[in-house]
């Protein structure tokens, strides 16, 4: 479960990137975080994951406050950032082991997970190579594998489908569903409405740092019809890709 209460963040004293956001992502659901480019999605995610400090407000992950019980809170989630270009000079397997060490994963458990994840994403053969030799999609996959290596209850994924081929994208969606069905939390951002419509149980729509809507898909469609500004947003989101 992820709980945000009255979270705000201002850059350079002027630009309100996140404006008094309150929302709860419940256990057992896939939660889509929707908004056009520059709406405040990534900033919000950075605040949730402890990369940025909020000016005010509180974030709790499975009950742990990201500011107070930092390390405990960080153990609760696996995070896939929007930029998969990291640790390029480590080999795939070295990166996975690094992540497993940081997340305290025992040897036998990590071996099993590396095998399963490697197979599902068809990455096993590439794990001996340095990440810099990977294509964009492969980098995305290795980052996802690293984020899931400790089998975290909460998944936080920033634009996870970008660069994935249809098959891997399908695999990831399938895994998201499985994970949520086991009573865990999946929180992911996207600027593509279609993706959200297909797999989300609930969505929040953010623009200019403010949450414009939060609810299930049924409610969202209703909302779009009755609210003009949301309708414009809807067009933006559908025309984006």
């Amino acid at each position, binding site marked *: 479960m992820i709980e945000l209460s009255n979270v705000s963040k201002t850059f350079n004293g002027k630009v309100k990137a996140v404006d008094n956001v309150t929302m709860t992502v419940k256990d057992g659901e896939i939660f889509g975080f929707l908004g056009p480019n520059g709406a405040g999605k990534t900033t919000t995610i950075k605040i949730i994951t402890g990369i940025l400090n909020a000016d005010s407000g509180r974030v709790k992950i499975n009950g742990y406050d990201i500011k107070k019980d930092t*390390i405990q809170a960080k153990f609760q989630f696996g995070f896939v950032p929007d930029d998969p270009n990291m640790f390029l000079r480590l080999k795939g397997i070295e990166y996975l082991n690094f992540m497993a060490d940081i997340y305290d994963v025992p040897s036998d458990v990590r071996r099993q997970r590396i095998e399963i994840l490697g197979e599902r994403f068809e990455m096993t053969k590439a794990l001996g190579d340095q990440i810099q030799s990977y294509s964009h999609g492969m980098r995305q996959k290795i980052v996802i594998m690293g984020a899931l290596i400790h089998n975290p209850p909460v998944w936080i994924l920033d634009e996870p489908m970008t660069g994935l081929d249809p098959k891997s994208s399908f695999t990831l969606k399938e895994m998201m569903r499985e994970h949520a069905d086991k009573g865990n939390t999946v929180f992911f951002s996207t600027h593509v409405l279609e993706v959200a419509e297909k797999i989300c149980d609930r969505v929040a729509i953010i623009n200019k740092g403010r949450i414009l809507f939060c609810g299930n898909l049924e409610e969202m469609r209703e909302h779009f019809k009755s609210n003009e500004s949301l309708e414009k947003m809807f067009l933006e989101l559908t025309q984006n890709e």
Partner: protein
Amino acid sequence: MNKKFITLTKILLKSGLGTQGKRNKSGKTGILDRKLVLYLIIALALLPLVASIITMTVSIYDVLAQIGQHGVIISLSIIAISFMMFFFGIIYVMNVFYFSSDIERLLPLPLKPSQILAAKFLTVVFYEYLTEMIILFPILIAYGVKSGEGIAFYLISLVIFLLVPVIPLTMASIIVMIIMRFTNIGRHKDLFKVIGGIIGIAFGLGINIVIQNAVNKSLDPKALQDMLLSGGNSFVGIIGRMFPGAEFAANSLANSANINGLVNFIIFVAITVVGFLIFVYLGEMIYFKGVIGLSESGGSKSTGIEDLRKKSIRNSKLRSYLGKEVKLLIRTPIYFLNCVLTNFMWPVIFLIMPMAQFAGSNDMNLDMLRSIIANNEHAGVILSAAVAAAVFIAGANGITATCISREGQQLYINKYLPISYTDQLHAKVLSGIIFSTIGMVGLIATATVLLRIDTVIVILSLIAGFIAIFFTSLTGILIDLYNPKLNWDNEQKAVKQNMNVVINMLISMALGFLTVFGIVNLKTDLYTTFAILVLVFGILDVLLYRLLDYKGAEVFSRIE
């Protein structure tokens, strides 16, 4: 073909050798101005070198003119510059022909391999002119003025100036093309950059020793004559024969006043043209085969499940994080050359090079130095010097002084991982201490062998030095924590153009100086010196360590 070739050459020259195309995208005018200033600074910095080349040429000319052998200057300088161009040409050509980022944009265009090659070749030649301007140009002018040559000399000089790079570069290019066609070295771009860097540094140090020796000897006309004239049969002669055109070029200049010079000149031009044609012909055949697919991800050695299992063993967080730091330092060419390799260079710079100079002079020799060092009275000072060296090594490698900066835009990753900031900082300090210690051990070991230092002093130096290394490692990370340079698009900027390294190096130099200065004035014996150094550095270490633990994590968490 010609039109395309000329257009391509122009574009390649404009985009700065084609190796840095990406950087030129942003803010054109601003960068241009800064570049101009940069070039001016470089030109100013090179003036003393040019001046010393001119004075050296003049003094050598005077000595050799006495026996009518002044023509040797021309042949020597042409051979030397050909060798230099060939040597660096291999690295240059590899980068420009194969590793530059514009290759992927050129390959899809309807160009023949020879057109791309010739254009790229010409850009390299143009850049070699800059080297020539600094080295060959002053020599030719100084020589011409000294011997009162006529207009023919200068005309021939001009053409030779323009053509000299061609033969060494075609040779370098042909070698590189064959290597790239038939080996898979191209897949190890990083390794190649490291090797190239090491060769460059070695060459630089070598040249330094040679010039020092030459300067020593130029004070003695007889020795200089012997050295230059015997050269004809030795090393220089062999290198001279390596470049088929060099001899003819030199002859044509030495005999510019008569028909013999003209004949030699024509032969030189002919050899140059033929060499270039062979290069183009060969390139047409093998260039594309070597360059296509170079940037493909090599699904080279598919790793088996068994192998993956063996590699998957749990380590402590600290050890794993330290391992990551060390791997990135070693595997990133620029970090390796600046932060790791420097640790191994100090024995050469502090000991072997000065010794080579001692060997050349009569005032001071190795035995005298050894007896000074063997004197018990100096034991304390020697210990303090070793500790000062350790302090300096840890400051000069810049590992801790760039450990936050090197994270760059990826710093955020450290923020979401469940490992405390304090642990991360400890691992980073440790990575610096490890490499600095290796550097210190190398330096002290070399000194022990060369200068026959007493075993007790060696052991005490290692202990006190190790404690001292903590100090500069800690100042480094504190400096970088408070003022990290995170906004870079090129690793070079994180380590080479980072003031934090300079600041920490200055601190380490000042502290090293203070250490030796203090001990020299205190005149303490070995054990007292040891006690003082351990105590002082020990206390400083503890204070800095407490500061890092107390403030470090907080400062780190505030970096956004």
